[in-house]
């Protein structure tokens, strides 16, 4: 019953639950959409990461089978979380934000949502590439 692997699995599952809950609670508590974006992108990612680690240890220790499925899901979520966050931020900015409230770019061109890129747009192609690397 008090097998060290079992204790480890328990710890990771509880940690995952707590972080997942905190991420969703951030969605409820914070005032501003951009602030709310911070909770789910960070806390929830760690929560699900620890749940997946718990599942790996569980498969290894209890069933005795090596399982690395979970790494794929973790990797996928780690790769996609920044992209969704970026897209949501852009969707928020284009609909709700006043462009005078944003700081300047410090260059000749404005932010990519408002201004066209010089030549072929590299801003959008750069973001979409990361899901595939």
């Amino acid at each position: 019953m008090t097998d060290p692997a079992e204790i480890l699995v328990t710890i990771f599952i509880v940690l995952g639950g707590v972080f997942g809950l905190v991420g969703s609670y951030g969605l409820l508590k914070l005032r501003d959409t951009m602030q709310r974006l911070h909770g789910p992108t960070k806390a929830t990612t760690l929560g699900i990461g620890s749940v997946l680690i718990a599942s790996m240890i569980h498969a290894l220790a209890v069933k005795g089978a090596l399982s690395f499925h979970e790494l794929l899901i973790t990797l996928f979520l780690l790769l996609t979380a920044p992209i969704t966050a970026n897209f949501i931020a852009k969707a928020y900015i284009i609909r709700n934000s006043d462009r005078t409230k944003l700081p300047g770019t410090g260059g000749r061109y404005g932010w990519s949502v408002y201004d066209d890129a010089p030549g072929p747009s590299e801003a959008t192609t750069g973001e979409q590439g990361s899901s595939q690397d």
Partner: protein
Amino acid sequence: MIDIALTFAFACFGLGLLFCLWRITVGPNPADRILALDTMVINVIALLVLYGVREGTAVYFEASMLVAMVGFVSTVAYCRFILRGDIIE
């Protein structure tokens, strides 16, 4: 012991789903609703994985992988629709 931890985690992620639902209902602008939907997808993945641990089978991993992918694509499609008014240009 693992059973207690699993029940606790189920409760946590279930409560998280309710918070997200609240944000979808109230959320003042579309970006909030997309964010809440995305968080819901992540919570559902966690629930699926935990259910797989409880049942002791690996069948649910394919399901959670698929949910992860569909969730990502739908979030991006929704955001793109708001950004451009069109999904595939």
